[in-house]
């Protein structure tokens, strides 16, 4: 046990040195000293509860993705049937129960219809996305497969992440972390943001922009009574508009979606000093908008944002230049936010904020200061106790403890983990518990000496007999720590990280490093008695 050949010593010191060096950039930055840029600089990340910032958990509603997909399929099927030569007449179209179902006027069209629909069912992936069945010879039913829906939700989440990133970037905030969590959730972490209201508004807004024709034939009494005319939908006016509280009926199909925008900028209308958002369509959107406005000159259309009507002006003339203006009683701020949302694209799915944690930067800095002070006092107390009780062996334990803290920091920096406020508590507990290994060893050496063993044998036996319990205790603690990490969330995970890393480093420093030092001392001095 006490045999340390040179190669072993070189290895142990080398490992220690690497870990300690990795801790240096973090210590330098804690002391506000610049670390040379040219050198590698792994750093311990500070959690949001220490650095200040916001953690926002967003959740998507997958049923909405499925509904949208069904609607897209309905439009595509209608268009294909209309375009067919000769036209295939269909009727009794419904999208209830998550299925698209319709009747062919003549059963003879069935093969042609199938031939046209099958290409629509093919996604760009290998999974089968839809099933097509025919009942009673002329009713066709399209059912999305579970794989297809899963794929659609997955795609929607991925593109939602891109949209969120663009929106946050446009706020000029630095280094947001945006990660997918599970199937339908996204975590957004933004460091050092004082006011989270704007961020939450930006994330909460789906920004689905639609232009739909107003159903001028709908009776106002019907709309008020909630009776939806066939082929139409009813939307309320948005909050803050002059017509707030009123309802509008619009034609369900045949409108234009705002996902074909290339640009959106807030501006002021020169004629009446109103805040507006100027939008620019891409080529396809421009030509659709051109034909819609040409066919419907002097008829009203509704500008709908997230299922709420912003305004419902008339097409005064065909608009074919590819740009348009949205007005809707905006303030400068709300016009700007809408422009940002439109520029970054619509979210493919509504996201709800289901968890928010924000810590102001002052509180975080205060926590670090108090945590470090407590850690310092605690360490001094532990060290005093160890040296008073075990003398020279206590000094070895103390040096091991200092290396332990440095190696934990170095590993945390190297593994790119995050230090949180509970993580600081984890450090303090590790300092208190790490010496347990040395306590076990030293008490055992005392016992062995008492039983009359010679110095070398007592030390050797002390390490050997104590190490069994040390390993068992650390392995069980490791199990508990890993489970805390797996089931815990946020800052609590930071606690688990420090505890688990601390277990490994404590065993290394307390069991291996101290043994090397004690062995070196015994070999050099060959004491006939030891004071322990």
């Amino acid at each position, binding site marked *: 046990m006490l045999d340390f050949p040179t190669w072993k010593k070189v290895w142990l010191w080398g490992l220690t040195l690497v870990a300690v060096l990795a801790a240096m950039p973090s210590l330098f930055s804690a002391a506000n000293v610049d670390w040379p840029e040219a050198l590698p600089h792994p750093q311990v990340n500070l959690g949001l509860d220490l650095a200040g910032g916001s953690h926002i958990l967003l959740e998507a509603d997958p049923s909405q993705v499925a509904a949208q997909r069904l609607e897209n399929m309905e439009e595509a099927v209608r268009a294909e049937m209309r375009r067919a030569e000769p036209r295939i007449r269909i009727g009794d179209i419904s999208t209830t129960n998550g299925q698209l179902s319709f009747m062919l006027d003549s059963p003879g069209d069935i093969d042609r219809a199938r031939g046209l629909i099958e290409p629509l069912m093919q996604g760009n992936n290998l999974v089968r996305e839809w099933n097509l069945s025919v009942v009673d010879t002329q009713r066709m039913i399209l059912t999305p497969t579970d794989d297809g829906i899963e794929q659609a939700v997955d795609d929607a989440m991925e593109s939602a992440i891109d949209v969120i990133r663009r929106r946050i970037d446009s706020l000029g905030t630095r280094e947001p972390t945006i990660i997918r969590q599970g199937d339908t959730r996204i975590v957004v972490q933004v460091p050092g943001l004082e006011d989270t*209201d704007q961020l939450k508004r930006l994330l*909460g807004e789906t920004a689905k922009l639609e232009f739909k024709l107003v159903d001028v034939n709908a009776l106002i009494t019907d709309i008020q009574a909630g009776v939806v005319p066939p082929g139409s939908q009813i939307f309320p006016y948005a909050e803050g508009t002059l017509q707030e509280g009123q309802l509008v009926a619009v034609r369900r199909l045949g409108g234009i979606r705002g996902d074909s925008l290339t640009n959106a900028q807030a501006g002021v209308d020169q004629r009446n000093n109103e805040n507006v958002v100027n939008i620019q369509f891409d080529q396809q959107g421009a030509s659709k908008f051109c034909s819609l406005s040409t066919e419907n000159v002097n008829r009203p259309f509704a500008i709908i944002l997230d299922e709420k009507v912003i305004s419902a002006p008339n097409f005064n003339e065909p608009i074919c230049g590819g740009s348009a203006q949205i007005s809707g009683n905006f303030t400068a701020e709300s016009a700007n936010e809408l422009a940002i949302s439109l520029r970054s694209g619509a979210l493919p799915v509504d996201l709800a904020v289901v968890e928010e944690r924000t810590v102001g930067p002052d509180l975080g800095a205060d926590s670090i200061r108090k945590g470090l002070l407590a850690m310092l006092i*605690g360490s001094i107390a532990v060290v005093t*106790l160890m040296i008073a009780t075990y003398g020279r062996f206590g000094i070895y334990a103390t040096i091991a403890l200092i290396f332990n803290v440095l190696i934990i920091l170095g590993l945390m920096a190297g593994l790119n983990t995050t230090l949180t406020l509970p993580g600081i508590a984890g450090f303090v*507990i590790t300092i208190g518990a790490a010496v*347990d290994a040395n306590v076990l060893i030293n008490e055992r050496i005392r016992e062995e000496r008492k039983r009359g063993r010679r110095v070398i044998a007592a030390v050797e036996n002390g390490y050997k007999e104590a190490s069994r319990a040390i390993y*068992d205790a650390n392995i069980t603690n490791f199990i508990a720590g890993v489970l805390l990490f797996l089931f815990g969330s946020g800052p609590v995970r930071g*606690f688990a990280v420090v505890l688990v890393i601390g277990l490994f480093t404590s065993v290394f420093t307390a069991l291996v490093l101290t043994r090397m030092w004690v062995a070196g001392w015994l070999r050099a001095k060959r004491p006939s008695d030891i004071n322990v």
Partner: protein
Amino acid sequence: MKLLKLVPEDTNIKFLKLRVPFFIFSLLLIAASWALVLVNGLNYGVDFAGGQEIRATFTQTEEAPIAELRSSVGSLENVGSPIVQTFGAPNEVSIRVKLPPEAEGNPEFAAEMTTAITDSLKANYSDIRIDGVDSVSGKVSGEFRQDAVLALLAAMLAVALYIWVRFEWQFGVGALFALFHDVSVTLGMFALFQLEFSLQIIAAILAIIGYSLNDTIVVYDRIRENLKKYRKMPLPELLDLSVNETLARTVMTSLTLLVALVPLLVVGPASLFGLVAAITAGLFIGTYSSVYLAAPVLIWLGVNSNSFVPQESKADIQERKARGEA
């Protein structure tokens, strides 16, 4: 240099003489803890109940207007009666609001409430600084509760299993029972004093499990060693010997952990108080359970000096028979 000896040499305290009364006491303690948890309930923080906790500092005022805050925040729609307390210093407050029943099925509800409360605070008090906001919806808090229960159960079972493998089944049962005691009593304390029960406390309980187990393993390791060494010694005597032999270590380790924790309790950040207080209490609970529960359970489960004699394998038996021995 004369070294400090916290425990006199060669102690011979008859810990296990009182094992039956202490065991009954522990059982009563566990029952009382669960009764408290069921009757009083745990004072769930926002992590587990949903709702929001807003922490704020009044930068110009010495003392926060607690009563005024309570009524002004309480008058907002859907807020009900908020819990307003100072937090650390007299000008720092924490405002806790539970989720109303209306929040059911509306994931956005919690976030919208938070915005309404912070807006009204900023409008009413010009010198208020919002230090932190925790807002958790009903769905997420339900998941946190579920994960917490799973983490605790899984941790207890996994470590008991490990001990079973490393020692004998009786030791696994003993350790599991001691852990169950520690977790129960900690929960009971939180129910009795109605301290805020949050995710951090789950971390604390897992740390207690780790610490208590550490203690149990040290005692068990010594029991195993002594079982092999003193094969004729009656078990209660042997357990007492093992506890006494490891007593110096138990005291020293508890003390080092204690002197590390107390500064954190006194000068540490206010938001860590619950976590550190729970671990500090757990230090005593865990040490007690290792000596008075984990050890005597071994007597009742029939551990004896043959427990660690390796069993003869089938091959050995055949070999022995082949040699013609009995």
